[in-house]
């Protein structure tokens, strides 16, 4: 991640995240405008899911008349529990939105036990 040519450390903010669980998977939706697929790094180390992205937007050539947007890289850490299958993580990056699908292990899914009338 460290770039020797950069002089000042860039600010890092947590991207806006939507998290939902649906049919045996947990879907993370992270909004990271200005991030391309190649600028993204997703790692799982033990119980930690680390998502970092560099916002590679060239500095504006000129004078700012209005400046409201935040210029920062993205970083977000999540702690995974044992129910998440570490080997089945799907990532899709589209229009500045990262969709991460984490699958829940089959063994962790609740089993329905039918009760029969005696």
């Amino acid at each position, binding site marked *: 991640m460290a770039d020797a040519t950069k002089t000042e450390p860039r600010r890092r903010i947590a991207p806006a995240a939507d*998290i939902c669980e649906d049919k045996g998977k947990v879907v993370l939706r992270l909004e990271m405008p200005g991030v391309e697929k190649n600028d993204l790094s997703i790692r799982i180390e033990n119980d930690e899911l680390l998502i970092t992205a560099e916002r590679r937007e060239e500095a504006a050539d000129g004078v700012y*008349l209005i400046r409201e947007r935040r210029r920062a890289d993205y970083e977000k850490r999540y702690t995974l529990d044992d129910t998440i299958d570490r080997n089945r993580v799907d990532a899709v990056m589209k*229009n500045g*939105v990262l969709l991460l699908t984490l699958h829940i292990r089959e063994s962790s899914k609740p089993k329905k036990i039918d009760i029969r009338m005696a």
Partner: protein
Amino acid sequence: MRVMRWKQRDPFNPLSDFEQLQNEINRLFETERYPTMSGLFDRVISPEIDVVENEDGFVVSCDLPGVEIGDIDVSIADNVLTLKGEKKEESHSPDSKVYRRESWSGSFQRTLALPKAVDTSAVGAVMRSGVLTINLPKREEVKPKQIAVKVQ
């Protein structure tokens, strides 16, 4: 030129200054990501924009992650640039459990009064990885010209 976002101040609410202070502190700590709303009757979201001026023109950029090109409408009428559209909410099946929702969705709109120098016929807009960039070139006659001065 310095442009600041207009803040509505309620003269009948003695706590409005404190609320404003709270909002500003929240913004500082990035706990508040939801953009502000504007409009008298149709409440629309005002997404954050940057406007940069250089010798060739003006560049307006706006973060619109997850918005398709077809849902954005950029138009110019009487030197007023209107950028509007809809950021659609991600569809969920009814039995999915939503744990957290930080992103915004809904109709958005920003209007900017353009300076006379803008050549409205040559405006171009590009959407790339969730960032909308609008290029507003200046008219040729208002661009600064280098005049070489020869020393005799």
